[in-house]
């Protein structure tokens, strides 16, 4: 036991003495929380648009006014004709153009119908749809004003209740995702690199030659990262709670327990990677390029999993962080207990066991 602690201590020294790695380990989660919390969002404000008004009458003026005073849009320019629209889009600054045909108000009064063209720069389809919808809403508002809100017969009223996240904050969606991402990446990357580094520099052999169970050598490498990851987790939770006002409705203990499970899964994966690579470069490349994007994609917090084609959805089932994401949401946001997530926990547990068996077996054959 004492020897084990000696190894663990050595590993802690390695980690803490490398300032740049510490920057990554602790800086990354903080940066991600701040960025996701405050900078990365799909809402659009102050989008620059242009208007091409062939009527210039009362109705168009009123509509244009409404648009100008909404905080979604900034009217950059009034165009003279719509040939200029293409040029405006090409500069990249303008996202939307609204065209009012001639005799707009007249058509409205006499024929009860008029058209407005909303031309969107759909090279970013997301922005295009969102902005177009904003315009539609504004015009619908104007239409309501025209009808003087006469009481409609046979009115169906709807009441909407937003459950779990009444303020529609983005945090509830991505904070669990950031947790998953950070834990996965750090544990896999760091463990694999740390073990391979010793292999490369030859110090691994020294350790293996010591009167010490080689498996414990490996485990001692994983321990600092287990500890660091839990600290990281605590930091993320504190930041989310205080800075981003994220709810923590369920049992914090259960959360940490599940997180420990994920950490062990990730560490086993790191161990496996270290067994199949000989150089630090390969270990890093596999961990980063081979893992960063899959985890980012298939956990389900950046892009909804339901949208993906079936084969990709199947692939996502093999990514441990996907199950962890579900577990965290259930505990943190829905406030559920273990009975709700036992299935996901079991899957995660099975993955861990499988990975551990695989990697330890490989490790053994290397020794032999």
């Amino acid at each position, binding site marked *: 036991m004492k020897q084990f602690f000696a190894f663990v201590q050595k590993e802690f020294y390695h980690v803490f003495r*490398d300032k740049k790695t510490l920057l990554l380990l602790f800086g990354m989660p903080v940066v991600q929380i701040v960025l996701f919390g405050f900078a990365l969002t799909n809402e659009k404000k102050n989008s620059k648009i242009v208007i091409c008004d062939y009527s210039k009458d009362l109705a168009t003026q009123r509509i244009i006014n409404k648009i100008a005073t909404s905080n979604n849009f900034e009217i950059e320019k009034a165009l003279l004709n719509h040939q200029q629209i293409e040029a405006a889009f090409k500069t990249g600054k303008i996202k939307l153009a609204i065209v009012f045909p001639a005799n707009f108000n007249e058509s409205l009064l006499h024929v009860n119908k008029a058209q407005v063209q909303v031309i969107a720069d759909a090279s970013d389809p997301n922005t295009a749809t969102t902005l177009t919808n904003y315009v539609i809403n504004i015009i619908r508002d104007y239409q309501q004003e025209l009808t003087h809100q006469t009481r409609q017969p046979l009115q169906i009223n709807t*009441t909407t209740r937003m459950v779990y996240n009444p303020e529609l904050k983005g945090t509830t969606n991505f904070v669990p995702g950031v947790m998953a991402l950070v834990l996965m990446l750090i544990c896999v990357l760091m463990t694999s690199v740390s073990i391979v580094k010793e292999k490369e520099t030859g110090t691994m052999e020294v350790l293996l030659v010591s009167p010490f169970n080689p498996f414990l050598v490996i485990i001692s490498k994983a321990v600092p990262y287990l500890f660091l990851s839990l600290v990281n987790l605590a930091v993320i939770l504190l930041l989310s709670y205080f800075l981003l006002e994220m709810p923590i409705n369920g049992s914090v203990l259960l959360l940490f327990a599940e997180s420990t499970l994920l950490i062990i899964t990730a560490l086993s994966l790191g161990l496996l990677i270290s067994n199949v690579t000989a150089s630090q470069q390969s270990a890093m490349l596999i961990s980063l390029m081979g893992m960063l994007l899959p985890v980012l994609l298939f956990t389900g917090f950046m892009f909804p999993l339901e949208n993906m084609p079936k084969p990709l959805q199947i692939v996502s089932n093999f990514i441990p962080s996907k199950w962890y994401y579900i577990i965290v949401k259930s505990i943190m946001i829905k406030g559920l207990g273990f009975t709700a997530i036992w299935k996901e926990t079991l899957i995660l547990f099975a993955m861990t066991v499988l990975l551990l068996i695989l990697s330890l077996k490989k490790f053994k054959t290397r020794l032999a």
Partner: protein
Amino acid sequence: MRILKFLLQKEFRQIFRNPGILRMIIVVPIIQLLILPLAADYEIKNINVFIVDHDHSSYSQKLVSKIGSSGYFKLAGYGESYQNAFKQFETDNADLILEIPANFEKNLVKENESNLLIAVNAINGTKANVGNGYLTQVIASFNGEIRLAWVSPTRYSSIPLIEVVPVNWFNAHLNYRYFMVPGILVVLVTMVCAYMCSLNIVKEKEAGTIEQINVTPIKKHEFILGKLIPFWIICVFIFSISLLVVARVVYGIVPVGSIALLYAFLALYLVALLGIGLLISTYSATQQQAMSLAFFCMMIFMLMSGLFTPIDSMPGWAQYIAKANPVTYFIDVVRMVMLKGSGFTDIKMHFLIMAGFAVLFNGWAILNYKKTT
């Protein structure tokens, strides 16, 4: 110059002799280019609606079938009570619950008014908003149909109607892949570039061969060029394969604008990025450090580049960061040139800024790299 030739020979030999690295830098980007656009889709579809119908009238059934056939929704099931339905939220089986009260049809006809309750799983705020919007739209449309059946058309259409005609340019089918693929191209090239370059130099530091180089008459700029040029060539190669082969064949994306313009900007961009890789290597003594620094920087660059979320949606301070990020400009240029056919005048500023970055990063790195300590 001659020395440079020898340096380049050595670099290329070393890179190509390492099979793992080669596989990584060519195969992995291509795989990701194939998978990412398929997965990266923000469009909200397949929304699961769970129905609690206490009325079981012809109106409630009509409404439900209208919802199911709207194309936005999937009917996830029927329940007896709201409490019962709520469990669907807990298991993520439902995104929305629609509760139709008893006497829905009777009240609508007799009292001219009736209420519906919608509950939304709002963990994903965007999805919740859109889902709710679609559902209220369908209900409103249903409402209009009922009115039409009961009230005479002439009286009804005394309400003026403004019809909004949405038109989408450059991407008529709102194909999200058109948008993502160019951006992903950029990200892939960026990652390979920055990592490989910095790791490569640090590896020499670790192995001690850099000391040998420092003792020879190889000049600083010759050494640096010898490191940058091979990766520059490799990255251009990766970009070319991704753009001309994968993007064209798999996604049918052909640049609308000038390919020469794209390559011109790529050339400049790579110089800037290699400068970053170089810079990172001057601050790292071990490969692990280089990797940590590179990853930290790359992550920020990627997130703040406008690839996943738009820059205009960011608060002021974040926009400054995005503007100081070279990746932002390349993504912009790639999208503008590939999808809209923008020309040189449109991206003049981008060129200028990127040149500035190139000078800044490379200059800083060269200052740092000292043959004598």
